[in-house]
């Protein structure tokens, strides 16, 4: 073989970096730059996908040492099944989004320079590829920061708005706090690997080879978990997500939410299952609890939003939670030496990683299409877009169905697998887990139901009913590259939903590598048509048959409605049978989520008031009615505000050292020298 997968992956990264050099030459013709660079990005992403698919298929591990880096500390690369899988995920979404961007970024031409977007876009994707390929702490952290910095500039793209600057700053702060924790974690492991003698412990290989004492391993694990949680947006470190995602350009939000968060999942899996390997069961329980809290709180917060992209951002928190549930279960089962169920849980988590990348990418692309067409993010001002934008509407609907975990799309499969893992938990020896597991399963079910409610709202308010806005802009369907990007993602959602057995068979090398077991044999007992994760008599699902069944029902309904002329009557949308209702009286996002806001109100910081005006009129006949609602994250007041205040207080105290007089500064050094001389003597 002339090429190896790692060559392909490296070539892909080089192509991305090449674009950065290429872009400035096309500064004169921005349209041409957008076409060339994003096409090149799409091609480069496909190369990475090929490398990833190839590696995972064969389960090979390939290593390389680069002549870059610090003296005596070269960069190590490694492409194994796990990196291959994430490479595929990132590459696939990057491919779709690049196609989409050809159309989307056109909208910026003439409004602001697009070169910055093109360059940082390339850096960003290259950074993500480097993160999953890195095989030493140094290269990993460099790539990690590279990715974070590039995405910071992308969030800042429309930098004239104060909101964007604030969001980008918040993102950068949390990303850096996380990076410091990861750095410390690697420091602990690298130090223990060589007994704090030299620097050779910085490679992941050296860390893998050593056995850590449990207390140090715990410290390393929690540091890295904290660091990765900050990137993944696990509650309570999620606050940057709903700020940064809405303000970034939509193709960037798709990538950030779809795949950048997944690099953190990659990091968690890499550190726990690959590097530390042996750990007590309660680590898994902690991950599980964080996953459950993130899942349910994420979806509840999402329900309260009426900014489309903000809503999607909160759903990223939810889905990261669901992925973590899978990973946490896998860790629990691994520590109890149950490799088969561990493999099932890991497969569920990793499968959901891929799924979330696809449908969240699709949804953000859809939200971007809506934004592109209407210049509006607030759902309360939209409505009835399905008539103007039928393509976008259908594709967005596919995303909604997938994320709501409804068959026959992909979200259902991975959440169903997670449930299967939950249902096998009675075999666990720890009693507390036996109690925790049913609660966990119930919370997961609640999450799924709430997510479905949330997307009924998102889709219904945005695309159905009638336009709610004051002025009616001229809305057009989006251009073809954007549609094609979304169609590809939607098709992937469907394929992953109806052919799970093939997909699980393909990715089976990951559980083999990490937990030493495989589920493809039991999962594929009846071939590609039926998915039977544990045993056929226990549970089985066939996406194809469900899909065909749904198609059949739709076809029958269509025929029954259209066979007789006059069976269909057209009235005003959503007028509930009355005829005098205006557009402003329609059911909207706030009213839709009101029951849930009442039930779960104590979880939020809600301020709600109704003003009747003028006050002089009888209260039963108000002329005007003002409704004010503000829903805030409680985490802000509980966690972030005290920390922010404490750090400001501390800064002011430290600031007192700064007198502005040279003599004072000299006295500081003078006294330091004298003291050192006295004490070191």
């Amino acid at each position: 073989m002339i090429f190896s997968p790692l060559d392909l992956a490296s070539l892909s990264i080089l192509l991305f970096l090449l674009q950065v050099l290429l872009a400035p030459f096309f500064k004169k013709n921005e349209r041409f730059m957008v076409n060339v660079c994003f096409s090149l990005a799409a091609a480069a992403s496909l190369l990475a996908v090929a490398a990833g698919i190839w590696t995972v298929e064969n389960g090979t591990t390939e290593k390389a040492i680069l002549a870059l880096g610090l003296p005596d500390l070269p960069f190590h690369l490694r492409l194994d099944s796990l990196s291959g899988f994430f490479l595929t995920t990132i590459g696939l979404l990057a491919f779709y989004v690049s196609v989409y961007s050809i159309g989307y970024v056109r909208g910026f031409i003439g409004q602001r320079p697009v070169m910055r977007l093109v360059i940082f876009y390339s850096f960003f994707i290259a950074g993500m590829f480097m993160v999953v390929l890195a095989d030493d702490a140094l290269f990993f952290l460099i790539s990690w920061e590279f990715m974070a910095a590039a995405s910071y500039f992308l969030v800042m793209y429309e930098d004239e708005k104060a909101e964007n600057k604030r969001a980008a700053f918040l993102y950068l702060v949390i990303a850096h706090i996380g990076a410091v924790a990861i750095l410390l974690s690697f420091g602990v492991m690298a130090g223990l690997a060589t007994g704090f003698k030299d620097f050779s412990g910085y490679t992941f290989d050296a860390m893998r080879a050593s056995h850590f004492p449990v207390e140090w391993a715990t410290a390393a694990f929690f540091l890295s978990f904290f660091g990765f949680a900050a990137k993944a947006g696990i509650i309570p470190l999620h606050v940057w997500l709903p700020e940064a995602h809405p303000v970034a350009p939509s193709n960037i939000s798709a990538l950030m939410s779809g795949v950048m968060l997944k690099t953190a999942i990659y990091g968690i899996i890499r550190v726990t299952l690959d590097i530390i390997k042996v750990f007590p069961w309660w680590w898994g329980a902690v991950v599980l609890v964080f996953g459950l809290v993130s899942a349910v709180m994420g979806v509840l917060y999402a329900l309260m939003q009426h900014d489309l992209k903000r809503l999607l951002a909160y759903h990223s928190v939810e889905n990261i939670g669901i992925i973590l549930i899978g990973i946490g279960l896998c860790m629990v089962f691994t520590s109890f030496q149950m490799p088969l169920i561990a493999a099932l849980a890991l497969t569920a988590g990793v499968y959901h990683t891929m799924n979330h990348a696809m449908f969240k990418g699709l949804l953000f692309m859809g939200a971007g299409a809506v934004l592109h067409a209407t210049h509006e993010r607030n759902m309360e001002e939209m409505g009835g877009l399905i008539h103007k934008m039928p393509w976008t509407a259908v594709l967005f609907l596919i995303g909604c169905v997938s994320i709501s975990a409804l068959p026959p799309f992909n979200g259902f499969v991975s959440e169903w697998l997670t449930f299967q893992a939950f249902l096998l938990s009675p075999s666990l020896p720890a009693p507390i887990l036996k109690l925790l597991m049913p609660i966990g399963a119930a919370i997961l079910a609640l999450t799924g139901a709430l997510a479905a409610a949330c997307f009924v709202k998102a889709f219904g308010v945005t695309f159905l009913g009638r336009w709610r806005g004051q002025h009616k802009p001229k809305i057009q369907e989006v251009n073809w590259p954007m549609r094609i990007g979304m169609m590809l993602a939607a098709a992937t959602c469907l394929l992953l939903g109806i052919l799970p057995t093939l997909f699980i068979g393909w990715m089976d090398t990951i559980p083999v590598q990490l937990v030493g077991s495989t589920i493809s044999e039991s999962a594929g007992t009846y071939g590609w048509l039926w998915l039977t994760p544990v045993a056929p008599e226990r549970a089985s699902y066939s996406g194809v048959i469900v899909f065909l069944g749904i198609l059949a029902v739709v076809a029958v309904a269509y025929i029954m409605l259209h066979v007789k002329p006059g069976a269909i009557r057209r009235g005003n949308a959503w007028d509930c049978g009355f005829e005098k209702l205006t557009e402003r009286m329609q059911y909207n996002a706030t009213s839709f989520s009101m029951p849930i806001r009442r039930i779960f109100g104590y979880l939020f910081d809600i301020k709600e008031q109704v003003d009747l005006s003028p006050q002089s009129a009888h209260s039963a006949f108000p002329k005007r009615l003002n409704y004010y609602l503000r829903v805030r994250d409680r985490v802000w007041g509980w966690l972030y505000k005290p920390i922010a205040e404490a750090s400001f207080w501390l800064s002011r105290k430290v600031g007192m050292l700064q007198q502005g007089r040279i003599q004072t500064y000299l006295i500081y050094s003078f006294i330091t020298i004298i003291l050192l001389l006295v004490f070191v003597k």
Partner: protein
Amino acid sequence: MDIQTTAQIINFLAAMVLLTAFGMLVQRRIYGLIHLFAWQGLFLSVSTAIVGYAAGRHHLYISAVLTLTLKVILLPYILNVLIHKLKIRKEIETVVNVPLTMLIGIALVIFSYSLTAPVREMSTLVTRSILAIALATVMIGLLMMITRRHAVTQIIGFLAMENGLFFAATSATYGMPLVVELGLFFAATSATYGMPLVVELGVAIDILIAAFIFGIFFFHINTTFDSLDVEQMARLKEGE
């Protein structure tokens, strides 16, 4: 010249260096300061030459010549030109009054002697007592930087500090590890009598460059604040 006489001469020169250091601490006029600085350089240069002669380290002659050209001729000349161009004729205001500064200076000398006592006991070199004086010179230079308000005096203080470092390096001892322990990086180069030539040349060039940079800074500070009083720079402080 027997070893005893040499030691006497070197000690005498060291005393003169310390004396000029105190002189600088007291001196209120800027031209006087520069003269004192030149004198200190001269004593330093002569003492370096004598150490070189006594110890048979002939490369120390080069150091002596370098010191002479740089610190006795070139730097005072540059400073004079600067003062002339910037039209500074005022007396120098001090932050702390002179007697108190002197007292602190004396305390520093005592401190230096007590600090280097172990070195002096261990060493058999003719120059062993110089280390204390060198250290005292460094600290007095720093003290001068602290107590003076004028940018030019601060620079002279800095250069006097550097003189002390140079002195420590050329005089030096076999008590090297302890010297390192003192935490003063300069002394690390002073393995035995004198630094290696390369280091010396490097230091000489450093000083020269520093002088140029200071010159440029003077002009900038002067144009920005209309004065070379560093108190004015407190205005740069954030937030007020």
